[in-house]
């Protein structure tokens, strides 16, 4: 029993430390220099993408390789609204999320006719088509894209350091929102069914879980978050361009590595994976393309050792989830 008590104490300390880290991150603009804030902004953006890909691939068995589509849609929607339609920027942001959701509905109607590998190819094709359309849209600078006008940029802060802090705060808020609401979602009735689907789809259906409805909810859940990540990407790069806003490498391939390494089918996995990704990138930046090869090798190694990634291994060692979506007999 003392062993168990020590264990629970350890868990409590870990959770306490996590809360402390989150509070420290909330004070980021006062604690970190501009380079660190910029790096963390990117970190939070990728974390949001990882959480969403994990929800689709790890829970709903929607293995998408076209996630970058909605990042690009969010980016272009934001540019179109804020710059071309001259909508107030802080209204343009939620409207960009809504636009992404609206684009997700017909996309879903098409790709949900497909399963497994065909679905993966379908999402990729859909993303390519959207990227091509983005390159043809009038006012968005065609294939080479276009920069955000100075007044729009300045609306986020008169000084560079002010803007960096604003973007940091926005990305931190989005990551927190994505994590928090996804956690609550997983704890809901639909989320309970979704978690069952993760473990055994056929048995979930036999237990009464509506597999189609759950998939739809999941897919539509991720779209606005991906769109908002697209807005952040646009603000970080200060431009939209088909190849950058719809980057398959940055918004899908890296994300797959992150989730696979960190642990698919958990909330902890994407966080661990994103941290590891930034560490690896930091240390391997000097090696150029070797970096990608090493990243690929690491993720293959992880899959072979433990298909459920680092957090899967932790679970096997009996470490309970830090953000459990579980239910007990008492509410």
């Amino acid at each position, binding site marked *: 029993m003392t062993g168990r008590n020590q264990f629970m104490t350890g868990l409590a300390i870990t959770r306490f430390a996590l809360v402390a880290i989150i509070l420290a991150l909330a004070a980021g603009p006062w604690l970190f220099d501009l380079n660190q804030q910029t790096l963390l902004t990117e970190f939070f953006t990728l974390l949001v993408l990882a959480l969403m890909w994990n929800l689709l691939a790890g829970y709903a068995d929607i293995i998408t390789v076209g996630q970058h589509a909605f990042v690009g849609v969010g980016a272009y929607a934001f540019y179109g609204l804020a710059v071309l339609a001259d909508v107030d920027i802080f209204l343009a942001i939620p409207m960009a999320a809504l636009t992404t959701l609206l684009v997700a509905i017909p996309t879903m109607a098409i790709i949900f006719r497909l399963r497994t590998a065909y679905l993966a190819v379908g999402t990729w094709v859909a993303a390519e088509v959207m990227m091509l359309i983005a390159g043809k849209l009038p006012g968005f600078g065609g294939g080479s894209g276009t920069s955000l006008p100075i007044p729009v940029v300045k609306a986020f802060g008169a000084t560079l350091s002010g803007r960096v802090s604003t973007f940091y705060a926005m990305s931190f808020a989005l990551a927190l929102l994505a994590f928090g609401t996804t956690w609550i979602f997983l704890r809901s009735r639909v989320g*309970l*069914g979704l978690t069952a689907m993760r473990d055994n789809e056929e*048995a979930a259906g036999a237990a*009464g879980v509506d597999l189609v409805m759950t998939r739809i909810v999941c897919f539509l859940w991720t779209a606005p978050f991906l769109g908002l990540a697209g807005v952040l990407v646009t603000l970080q790069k200060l431009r939209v361009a088909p190849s950058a806003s719809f980057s398959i490498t940055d918004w899908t391939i890296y994300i797959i590595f992150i989730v696979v390494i960190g642990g698919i089918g958990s909330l902890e996995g994407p966080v661990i994976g994103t941290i590891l990704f930034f560490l690896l990138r930091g240390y391997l930046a000097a090696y150029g393309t070797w970096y990608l090869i090493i990243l690929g090798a690491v993720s293959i190694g992880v899959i072979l050792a433990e298909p459920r990634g680092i957090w899967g291994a932790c679970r096997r060692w009996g470490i309970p989830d830090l953000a459990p979506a579980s239910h007990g007999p008492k509410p």
Partner: protein
Amino acid sequence: MAVDAQGRPRHEEARAPVLELRDLSIRFGGLRVIENLHLEVQRGEILGVLGPNGAGKSTLFNLIAGVLAPTAGAIFFGGRNITTMNVWSRRRIGIGRTYQIPKPFAHMSVFENVLVAAAHGGGRAIRLSRAEAMDVLEATGLADRMTSMAGQLSLLDLKRLELARAIAGRPDLLLLDEIAGGLTEAECDDLLALLKKISDHGATIVWVEHVLHALKRAASRLAVLYSGSIIAEGAPEDILADDRVREIYLGA
């Protein structure tokens, strides 16, 4: 029996069998696994199904539960044609089933495994399903394993979990696929008592089982499935005494 769950009279349905399979067939490529099968199951009965390995018993359950679509024929449940209905809708209108090879939600607790079925199968909020899940865990002897991850259960407990998930939400029709194997005599008695209780509450049970002494004690009727068709149906003592059945099934 002349009223439904809402208390409305149900003259038509009361007379109709709970489950009716009409000329049901399924083929996998060239392999005919179920062939023009006809079967009626009456409300409240416990129908035992026996047949040699590979006879198509589990396939039959997959057809009734909606995992597989028949190549021909129709399935009626409570007088309603459900042939094209999906799995979860069938579960929600009252068809619960166990899997012969357990399919646990391995990374969820035993309690949550049952909660999924109580909430989704029973069509209720989580908050209103906890008590039901607890009752089912007590009834199936899993209460003390409640917080374990389902993936860590022994095969015997996994079979209990299958039963627990199947009965959570109180379906009208239970399809049980070999749940008595490996039980001690006392455990078997407990199981039969549980099934009797479920049956007394008005549920209909179709039970595929190789453990004949258990089946014989519980079943009000037996049906013998042999290469995809029902070759004999009737009172348990008659069926077990039937020469054809003894030859095919018992290899005697």
